[in-house]
Each structure stands twice: as structure tokens, then as C-alpha cells.
């Protein structure tokens, strides 16, 4: 397809419109959901003990949950390895994608060039493992739902198309970057009409649209879990836990 044709122009406009729609849905949806968690009160102290007794300790507990999944480690070592590798690889890949969003590109991102493909494969392998695990164990098979398979499938397809478009069926990166920077600076230009790139890109748009309204929101919700983010202070003077919607006078 050529952008010079009317059909090509329409298609470009469609992709650009879809990009803004999905991007806005992601940002607004995410803020709306997280604000919902933020504004909902927790009526009583709810820390699972043994718990830290200071705010700093509670913060450290939450950061630990985000970074190293200690509860999962206690629960299931094989799942911990799969899940942790999956998330670290995802973080590395997202970080490396900064090269499509920034100019000039930060040095560290460029430095990652040599290991980028490795993280791509690792992520794909971890996603496959997690998918296999859902089907292979009777207990996970019993609890797995359509949305669980869908999320893994979507992420796996994004990874697969991403690897292909970066390393085998190359897309011209300058065009990609011009397109992305154009979107970000509100001066959109036509997307590269490379089928594999467009596949990768549309799947990402679908992910953005799906994220705030699905279980993927655990990425934000983890910060709001009262059993983990509260310090245990119920016996401390001056630290009375007040229920905002039912506070006896005194």
C-alpha cells in the first residue's frame, strides 16, 4: 500500500486515530481505576502479620513485593522463577523501547542493544512456560479463565511479532521513530506500512485498551493492597486507626 493513494492516506489516518484513541483510553482508564482505589477508604487496620511497625517498613514491604515477589517465592518456587523472569524481561524490553520514544536516546538504552534480543527470547519463553503451566497442572487448569489465556496470548504475540520485526523482517527504524515521535509531539506522520510492524503495533494498541479494565491492572493495584501496605500500629499511642465513614467521637 502506498501512502500516496487515497486509500493509503485513509489507512494512515485510521492508524493515527486509533493510536490516540487507545493511548487516551489507557491513560484515562488507568488514572480512573487507580483513583478509584485511592479514594476508597479502608475501614479497619488490615496488615497481615508479622508486619512492619513503621510507615517506612510498610513501604519497603510493598517495594519488595513489586521487585522480588517474596510471597510467591514462599508459595511455589517454579512459578516464582517463571513469573519473575517474565516480569524482569518485560521490564527490560519496555525500557529498551525508549529508543523509539526519546531523542537523543539515553546511553543505557543504546548500551542494551547487544542483549535486547536475549530478553525478547526470554520473555517469549517465560510466557510459553506460564501458558503451559496453566494447562498442565490440574489446579491451574481448573482456575484459568478465558481472560487468563487471552492476556498471555496477547503478550506472546506482541513479543513474537516484535522479535520478527526487529531481527528478521526488518522495518526501517527511522520511519518507526518518526511515526512515534510525531504522535507524541501531536504532529502525526504516516506510519511505516510494514505488515509485520503494523501487526505488532495494533496488538500493542489492543493491549493498551485492555490493560486498565483487566487483571493486568495488578501492576497498579499491588500498591493499594491494604494487607501489605499498612504498618501494624494498633497498639501504639497516638496511632489510632480511624475509619473515615464511621468514627466514634472522642
Amino acid at each position, binding site marked *: 500500500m502506498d501512502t500516496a493513494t487515497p486509500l493509503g492516506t485513509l489507512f494512515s489516518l485510521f492508524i493515527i486515530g486509533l493510536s490516540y484513541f487507545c493511548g487516551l483510553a489507557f491513560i484515562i482508564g488507568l488514572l480512573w481505576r487507580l483513583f478509584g482505589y485511592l479514594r476508597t477508604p479502608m475501614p479497619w487496620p488490615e496488615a497481615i502479620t508479622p508486619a512492619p511497625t513503621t510507615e517506612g517498613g510498610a513501604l519497603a514491604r510493598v517495594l519488595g513485593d513489586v521487585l522480588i515477589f517474596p510471597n510467591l517465592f514462599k508459595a511455589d518456587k517454579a512459578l516464582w522463577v517463571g513469573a519473575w523472569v517474565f516480569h524482569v524481561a518485560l521490564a527490560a524490553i519496555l525500557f529498551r523501547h525508549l529508543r523509539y520514544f526519546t531523542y537523543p536516546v539515553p546511553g543505557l538504552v543504546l548500551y542494551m542493544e547487544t542483549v535486547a534480543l536475549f530478553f525478547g527470547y526470554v520473555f517469549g519463553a517465560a510466557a510459553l512456560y506460564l501458558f503451559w503451566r496453566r494447562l498442565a497442572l490440574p489446579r491451574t487448569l481448573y*482456575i484459568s479463565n478465558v*481472560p487468563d489465556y487471552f492476556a498471555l496470548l496477547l503478550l506472546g504475540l506482541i513479543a513474537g511479532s516484535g522479535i520478527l520485526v526487529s531481527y528478521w523482517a526488518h522495518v526501517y527504524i527511522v520511519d518507526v521513530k518518526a511515526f512515534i515521535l510525531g504522535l507524541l509531539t501531536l504532529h502525526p506522520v504516516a506510519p511505516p506500512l510494514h505488515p509485520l510492524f503494523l501487526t505488532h503495533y495494533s496488538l500493542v494498541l489492543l493491549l493498551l485498551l485492555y490493560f486498565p479494565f483487566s487483571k493486568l491492572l495488578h501492576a497498579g493495584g499491588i500498591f*493499594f493492597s491494604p494487607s501489605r501496605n499498612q504498618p*501494624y500500629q494498633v497498639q501504639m*499511642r497516638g496511632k*489510632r486507626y480511624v475509619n473515615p465513614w*464511621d468514627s466514634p467521637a472522642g
Partner: protein
Amino acid sequence: MAKFDETPIVKDAAKNGVLAPPELREHASSRVRCWPSKAKDTIPIGLPPERVPDWQERAIAKFGELLERNKALRVYMDICVRCGACTDKCQFFLGTGDPQNFPVARAELMRKVYRRYFTPGGRYLRDASEAADFDEEMLEKWYTYFYQCSECRRCSVFCPYGIDTAEITMAAREILCSIGVSTKYVTEVVAKVYETGNNLGIPSAAWKDNCEFLEDELQEETGLPIRFPVDDYGAEVLLVPPSADNFANVDTMIGYGKLFHALGIRWTTSTYCNEGGNFGLFLNYANLKRVNKRIIDAARMLNVKTIIWGECGHAWRGGVLTPTLNGPMDMFDPPYPYHISQFIVDMLNKGALNGKIDKSANDQYLVTYHDPCNPARAGQLLEEPRQILRACVNRFVEMPANTIREKTYCCGAGGGLLTDEVMAIRMAGGKPRAMAVKHSGANFLATICAICKAQLPEAMKYWKVDVEVGGVIQLLGNALKL
């Protein structure tokens, strides 16, 4: 133990005291249900006497209200990824093999309804979003499986987000009782508290009689005037024990008496509130608060300086909520709320019991300690009971690491399940604890919870573990030189 249908119970043996997850047995425990409540109990505690005609609308409205009022519920409805980490952690699954007793499957019963009525996906794409109507069938599942959860929070310890199934179960039960669906056992107990001051329905006169009887017994046994004061205005300490301590677990009660005698502290119990255990936790917020308030009121009536909570797990869970539910406790001496185990440890650390303990008095026992779920996972009481045991017994052994401290198993009857019609669930739920005790080789199982003390002897007998069950303070009482 009366005969009951044992088919819901998995009989596989444990290895080294730890149970492997059993084969899945769908619907294995789907017919084990608590008896429904009666109007004579629900009316006095402010609940509808029978299922209300517009129960579906009312339930969904109540659900919506709770989502606005409880952050934990709102977050935990959304963020579960169904990773399966919790699926082999619940004692009721390990004992029954029923996959509906996976914590995640239990919570999904509520999430399906949440998605159906509170998310766009569930409203418009019901089946693809794993959403379901709140219909007769779902109501029955809620009633069955939210009363096969003891709100013990073991699953939360293994959840990467700390999703607390107890919060979910509590919310589900709050919704159920708002539409007139509740259990006989829990409503009966709460009604008894308002009538008599305690869960067992012991009248004041009988409470006083029991205390006098204990005084006479101990006078005869020790020759000492060990007192069990009742309604002593101006005492230093109001002890709020579980009422079972003055009825079934008298050895625990004797332990309190000996301790305060040894320390020379003027203490009392109250006939207005001689119950720490708060069954409102298993019902709804209004009753949780109302039952809890009786403790503060009793302390004010008797003008005591300090309230001390006795050996009761749910009491302590309710206890730590006291400042939140019923106002500050600034008029009492800190630390507050104060647990008897913390009090004993403070006394040990101060040296108040130096030279007064003869550990050899417990030498016939090899003791192990069962962490009740609430003190361990909701009340930060992990070290104190062990410290007391180290001070008063020579022979102590721990159970496997996977079954103690914050990873402790529920006794199998917490959360309003200590009732005979669900005996199959109780014995199934008690299995992991029984296997761990057996492995430890102990002949005395010490704990600090009245429900555990009622459930564990039956579970130990069922699983053929030869062990005596009693209080931590009972062992301390044995060892005190008076």
C-alpha cells in the same frame, strides 16, 4: 463424636508431617452446609428474619455499597491474576480436595458477580469475561463455600499481592446477612452475647458460681486464697477471657488466677461482658462493633485501669480493632489493647516472675505450640507465646516450618464453623494441623485460642493423634511456685 458423612474428607497420609495437595474432587464438600438461622436469633441482632423478597437487587446494592467503603474488597476484586499460588494452601482444600475450596475459587464466586454488575466487560460480554448472575444457584454456592472459609488468612501469606480472602469472605457474609441469609450457629452466638454477656449463654449467677467453685478447689489443692473476682469495681485489670475458659477450658482460667495471684494484681472479670470472642466478625460490621463496644463499656462500668484480652484468637482480632471501632482507649493504661501473652512477657522481662517458676513441673509434657490464625496473622503474636513456653517448660518442640508462625494452619473450625452439622469440614480442615502434631511427637499441644481448644481435641481424636490440648497459660500456671 456423633456420626457424620465422611465422604468429603480426603484420607491420604502426610509425609514428614506435611500434606501433599490431593487429587481434585469436584463438589466433594458442596453439600456440607451450616444450618440456616432462626428468627428468634436474627431479629434481636438486627437482621431480616428470612430471605427478603427483592434479595437480588438488595444484594447487588449492598455489594456496591461495600465496594465504595472497603478498599481491600475493591482492589481484591480486580487484581487477582489466578496464578494458582494459593491453590494448595487452604486447609479446607487439603482436607476435602474440593477445588471450590481453593482460595482463588472461593473469591471467584464473588468476583463473577462483581464483574457481572460492576464492570463493563461483565455487563456486555458476560461469558467471555467470566461473569455470572447472582441467581439462586450462585446464592447457594456463596452460602456453602463462604461458610467453608474460616477467615484464617493463610492464603494471603502466599499471595503475591497479599489478597486477603478473609476480607472477601467477610464482605460476602455481610451481603448475605443483609438479605436475610445467615447461619444458625453464628447468629445464635451473637444473640446470646446481647442476652447474657457471653457466647455460651452462661448466666451471671452461674459465672459467679463457677468462679467461687474454682476458688474452693484451689484453696483445697494449694491451701492458698487464689481469687477469681467478678465485677470488682476499681480493680486494676479487667480480664476479658473467652467465656469457654470458665466452662470447658477451666485449666486456662486457673492459669489466669494463679498468674494474678503470683503477681499480686487486683483483677476482675465482668458479668456484663465476660466474652472476648467476637462473632460479629463472622457476620457483619454492625454486630462486630456492637459486640466490641461491650468490652469498653464493661471496663468503664468497673472503672478499671487496663483491659487484658485472654487466650482467644478471634477475641484478639476483634481486640486490635477496638480503638478503631469504639473510640480511643486513652483513658486506659497503655499498651492497649493488651493481650495476656504480651502482659506475661512484659512481666517476665521486668523480672516480676523471677524465682517463681519451676519448669520441671511440666516435665511430663513434650510441648508443641499451635499458632492460632488470628494472633499469628492479624495480631503480631508470634514470639510472645513461645517466649512464655520457653520460660515454663523444659521440653519444647516445633512442628514443621511450613505449618507454624504466619504459615500456621487453622484448627479447622474458626470463622463460625465450630458447629456439629459441618463436622466433615471441621475434620477435613483440622487434618493438616493433626498431621503436623503427629509428626512432632508432642504429647501436649499448647495454644492461645478457645475455638482451637474446642476443635483440636476432636480433630486429634479423629486423626488418631494422642495429645492433650491446653492453654499456654495453663502450663505457666502448672509451673508457678505460689
